[in-house]
């Protein structure tokens, strides 16, 4: 554990988490508001620009203004809450969401350094492990608030998250089987060379087997994305909040920055989820059609590395826009429908999908 390694890791963490993901969180809130407005034939926040000038930048200053507002608002703690856990809960939703980005490969190489914070051999497992901890934040928030709506929201949310974790985990098994890998960097490299999982149009995967495998991969993708919606408590599965029934669910009693942490945690989870989906199904940082694939061992020039990072971020942004688009199109599910979908359909389909993949891998040469 030498000092340069630590310094490089710190630089990567700062670069990814503080300079990329957190601003992205802020701006995805803005994008959410603008896109929802456009979908509903409104205008959305388009005013805040550079302060004291008339420059508006289509409202791009809004997230900063929102952030300042959150910080300056009164941080109100109701008298009936269980203090310690009440304070702990918001942090516990935000931290796991940010931790999971450690294993996401967000680029190929830059100055000869691999663009991933921790190149673990158990990437997806690590993500699921840490993501499964984020349920504590919600359960604790619901319980510590010591009032009825938050409690019901917390209960709903945790059972929803536990249920969908299963189909989420099972849905990526076919992918892992096909690539024979648990290392996300290697999975991306493989996709860069031989076709993305969802776009088998070049390399080895431009074959009968590749096309046959497209079927289970597509099923996986649908299940994975839908479960991701449920995991991040987004509409159409936002039953934990469900304004019409539960006021605001588990964060009813929270105000100021503590509320903001829940809010931002949800968006951070969404970004990481998009990152994982992009990494597993859409070729991570690679460009389509096998363009600009780094050779084994050869050093990657700076412009190419930067292009790869941009490609990754571009795909993630597209995925987030998809999240937003779905949110403002679909109505909320009923709770029993949600549970039925998770346990009766997705669970079975995911299991069957694994069998299908195994069959194709075994019998089609």
């Amino acid at each position, binding site marked *: 554990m030498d000092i340069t390694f630590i310094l490089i890791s710190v630089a990567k963490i700062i670069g990814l988490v503080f300079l990329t993901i957190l601003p992205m969180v802020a701006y995805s809130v803005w994008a959410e508001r603008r896109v929802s*407005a*456009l*979908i509903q*034939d*409104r*205008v959305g926040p388009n005013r805040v620009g550079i302060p004291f000038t008339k420059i508006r930048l289509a409202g791009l200053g809004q997230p900063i203004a929102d952030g300042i507002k959150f910080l300056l608002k009164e941080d109100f703690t109701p008298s009936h809450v269980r203090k310690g856990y009440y304070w702990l809960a918001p942090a516990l939703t935000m931290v796991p969401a940010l931790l999971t980005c450690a294993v996401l490969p967000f680029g190929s190489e830059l100055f000869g350094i691999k663009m991933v914070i921790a190149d673990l051999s158990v990437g997806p497992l690590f993500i699921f492990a840490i993501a499964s901890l984020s349920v504590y934040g919600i359960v604790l928030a619901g319980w510590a608030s010591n009032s009825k709506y938050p409690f019901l929201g917390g209960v709903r949310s945790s059972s929803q998250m536990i249920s969908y974790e299963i189909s989420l985990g099972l849905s990526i098994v076919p992918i892992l089987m096909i690539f024979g890998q648990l290392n996300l960097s290697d999975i991306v490299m493989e996709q860069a060379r031989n076709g993305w999982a969802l776009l088998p149009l070049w390399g080895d995967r431009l074959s009968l087997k590749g096309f046959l495998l497209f079927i289970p991969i597509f099923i996986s993708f649908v299940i994975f994305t839908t479960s991701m919606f449920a995991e991040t408590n987004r509409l159409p599965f936002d039953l934990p909040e469900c304004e019409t029934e539960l006021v605001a669910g588990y964060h009813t009693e929270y105000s100021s920055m503590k509320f903001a942490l829940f809010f931002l945690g949800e968006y951070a989870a969404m970004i990481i989820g998009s990152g994982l989906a992009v990494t597993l199904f859409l070729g991570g940082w690679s460009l389509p059609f096998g363009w600009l694939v780094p050779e084994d061992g050869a050093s990657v020039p700076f412009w190419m590395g930067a292009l790869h990072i941009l490609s990754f971020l571009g795909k993630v942004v597209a995925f987030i826009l998809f999240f937003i*688009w779905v949110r403002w*199109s*679909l109505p909320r599910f009923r709770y029993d429908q949600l549970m039925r979908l998770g346990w009766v359909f997705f669970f079975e389909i995911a299991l069957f999908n694994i069998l299908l993949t195994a069959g194709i891998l075994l019998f089609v040469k």
Partner: protein
Amino acid sequence: MAIVVKRPKLSFWEKLYLPGIIKGLGITLRHFFLSLTGKTKVSMQYPEEKWDSHLPEYYRGAPALVTDEQGRERCVACQLCEFICPPRAITIHPEEIPSEDKWAKVEKRPQEFEIDMIRCIYCGLCEEVCPEQAIFLRKEYAFTGLKREDMVHNKKRLYEIGGVREGLVNKWNELK
């Protein structure tokens, strides 16, 4: 008696939800692009675009006092408006008109006339009730202030907003 509503029988595709979901996504996408390219009409962008020039004659903005053609303040401080105002926004301090005044026969006028615009609900009852046609709801509607006192319109301000109204009944006029 309870009415039994038969559940509609869904076909396989309808049960699958997916076609419905995709159709819905299509609709929102169309709206998105129509708005993005500016084809959808959106509401007026308030501080820059105002509808002041389109305000109809009967628009009910802030209540204000008016003078007549001869510059006489029409209000006789009868206090009916103060009495009828539902949120009690109006406060009137009447005074006697000194005998040397040209309009001494009117006898009474408001020394001070205040309308608290934080309370006013723009109902127009004061205009309705006024026997002298002295108070009208005019077209001003945007008032701001940094203090509560700023939001109270005194007599001077009320005449500023109200201005002169002509062609009303002139019952105190010599020329009648």
